[in-house]
């Protein structure tokens, strides 16, 4: 009963926030957003804690369902969204002062913001696979108008590409979902409950051909949304044109929702279709994504697009980790879902400050950040090292686990390829931020030294602390959650 109420509340609150944001005055929008998002965050944490105690919780004949696997994604989504709400306050206040936006636009921003959070949290608690598909598709529909928020030529182009490609991907994934249903008709009869526990119970009796086809279609379909190459082409556009807090949510949270769709169908189809086939497909898309992303990282001149391509690389690596499939690699992949989400969110916050101060996203036009904005400079340099996989940050531990996992499974060549790709991506990702921070500003164009506001720094500093802690010592509850989630994946 309590579980059912909590599951409903975690999506009802953001939905309520969306409706309220339509009626309240512009000056109340920000306090309302922070308050309701903090409350949502609290409920999400309670739910995850209950999942840790009982393994999984479900309600309404499994329409709503949360286990450790979806708990991992819920954790990232909840943290990223609450911090994005706080960061939005600092970001939008600055934009209002600069008259880049006007107060009436806050209503549109927060209405879509809350809907976006609603859709992502609904993904994490969907127990019915039809609902899972619907909510993953809904995340696109809520976030596309946010990509277009600034309303000029480039954001519109990015938003259109985003919608057309990810909707096409969603349709392919839906075909996969329908084949998954059909694959269960043999063991379960023509009419059965299309829910995770029901299918998991019959997983080893599903039709092997249909299950394998279903997984491949879902991988291509939701892979489009997760930014896996070669279907990633919309991602650098959308993730660089949106307002920075939204970029953080797109890269840090939304991609993981699409991954959850892939992971879930993987766990349901692997017993019948054979894990080896499915893993091979994941490895192919994963390695290709890493290679393509690194090629574009090297020649990148725009720091927001740089971060977007880094997301493609990391999504590829997560897919590779699942493709390796050993327990250590699976835990590494799931940990990377968390650490990439948090670190990328941090980087979009910090680079958002940069964009607001310098009004450009071109790397070569920015100099001497360390003098102009010392705290942002710290965040950028430490964050770039963290996202590129330097110790002692969380991403390093995740990547290390994936490589170790490959070696543990005697996949020597594969482990070496992964390690080489990670190293190749390191310098192109770190060097630009280093250059912007430490190179001297040309005389006469030094920017007056001032940070934007506390609100624009605190969320990013909190994230830096979190990824540092995870890199040194993974907190016991998180460790437990990851192990349970890996057990779900390996079943």
């Amino acid at each position, binding site marked *: 009963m309590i579980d059912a109420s909590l599951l409903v509340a975690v999506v009802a609150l953001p939905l309520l926030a969306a409706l309220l944001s339509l009626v309240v005055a512009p000056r109340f929008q920000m306090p309302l957003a922070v308050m309701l998002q903090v409350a949502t965050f609290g409920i999400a944490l309670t739910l995850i804690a209950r999942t840790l105690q009982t393994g999984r919780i479900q309600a309404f004949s499994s329409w709503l369902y949360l286990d450790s696997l979806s708990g991992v994604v819920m954790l990232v989504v909840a943290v990223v969204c609450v911090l994005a709400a706080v960061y939005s306050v600092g970001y939008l206040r600055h934009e209002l002062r600069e008259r880049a936006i006007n107060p009436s636009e806050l209503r549109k921003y927060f209405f879509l913001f809350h809907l976006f959070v609603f859709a992502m949290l609904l993904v994490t608690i969907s127990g*019915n696979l*039809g*609902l899972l598909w*619907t909510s993953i*598709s*809904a995340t696109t*529909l809520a976030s*596309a*108008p946010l990509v*277009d928020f600034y*309303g*000029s*030529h*480039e954001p*519109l*182009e*990015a*938003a*259109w*590409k985003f*919608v*057309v490609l990810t*909707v*096409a991907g969603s*349709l*392919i994934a*839906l*075909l996969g979902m*329908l*084949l998954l*249903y*059909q694959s269960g*008709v*043999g063991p379960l009869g*023509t*009419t*059965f409950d*299309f829910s995770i526990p029901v299918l998991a119970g019959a997983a080893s009796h599903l*039709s092997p*051909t*249909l299950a394998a*086809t279903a997984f491949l279609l879902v991988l291509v379909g939701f892979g489009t949304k997760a930014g896996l190459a070669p279907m990633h082409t919309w991602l*650098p*556009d959308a993730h*660089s*044109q949106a307002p920075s807090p939204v970029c953080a949510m797109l890269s840090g949270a939304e991609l993981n929702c699409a991954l959850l769709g892939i992971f879930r169908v993987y766990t349901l189809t692997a017993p019948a279709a054979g894990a080896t086939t499915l893993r091979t497909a994941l490895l192919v898309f994963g390695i290709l994504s890493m290679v393509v992303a690194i090629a*574009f990282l090297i*020649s*990148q*001149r*725009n720091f927001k*697009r740089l971060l977007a391509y880094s997301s493609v690389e990391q999504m590829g690596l997560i897919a590779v980790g699942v493709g390796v499939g050993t327990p250590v690699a699976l835990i590494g992949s799931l940990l990377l879902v968390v650490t990439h989400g948090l670190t990328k969110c941090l980087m979009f916050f910090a680079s958002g400050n940069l964009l607001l101060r310098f009004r450009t996203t071109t790397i070569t036009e920015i100099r001497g950040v360390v003098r102009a904005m010392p705290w942002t400079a710290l965040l950028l340099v430490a964050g770039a090292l963290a996202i590129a996989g330097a110790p002692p940050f969380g991403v390093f531990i995740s990547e290390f686990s994936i490589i170790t996992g490959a070696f543990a499974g005697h996949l020597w060549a594969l482990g070496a390829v992964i390690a080489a790709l990670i190293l190749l991506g390191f310098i192109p990702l770190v060097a630009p931020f280093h250059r912007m921070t430490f190179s001297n500003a040309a005389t006469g164009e030094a920017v007056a030294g001032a940070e934007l506001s506390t609100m624009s720094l605190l969320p990013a500093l909190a994230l830096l602390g979190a990824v540092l802690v995870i890199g040194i010592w993974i907190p016991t509850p998180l460790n437990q959650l990851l192990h349970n989630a890996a057990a779900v994946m390996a079943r």
Partner: protein
Amino acid sequence: MALAEAVLSTLILIATFWLLIARQVRAAINGYAAQSILLGGLAIALFAASHLPHLLALGILTIVIKGAVIPAVIKIQVRGTSYRRRETAYYVGFPTALLIGAGLSLIGLVAASRLPFHTDLLSEPVLGLAIAVILVGLFTTMARRDAVLQLAGLLAAENGLLLVGLVVSPGLGLLIEFALFLDVLIGVVVMAFLIARMHETIASTDTSELSRLRG
């Protein structure tokens, strides 16, 4: 019954081809409306044969929402600009598009025949036609430069999925189908909003003018 289902599902594929080679936005939208009404008709015909009540609801909803409401929303959104214009822009020429469309249809039929299906309601060839509709619809989206036609292609593909749904999972349930309808409806609203923004920003719906983002 078997004859009605075969005729209706073939007509659905023909309507999809109409949409693929339409030279006017208006014709493409009419093609989509026709495809939706045929699909709704098929669902109602299946209800007559099986007496599954949700098929009747699905049929009526499809005819009303996809056959009338969505085409009307799109027509309102594009009125005056590109609606009556002939020769809308495309990436792939019409003869080539027809050939590729035919090839995709073949692929759909072959793929369907190779998958092991249990069906009570509809026969396997219908599944092949449905997959062909999805492929031709998605191809329309890729082959056209006009945003309205890209949207129409996605909607046509979605109708193909509904047809697959009728074949493989009549027991999937009304709630899921409602969710799907809601998703499509919201999708159309969002895309229509972006199309309206294109009118404001580039005074056209030709997406090839949206090509500044590179690298």
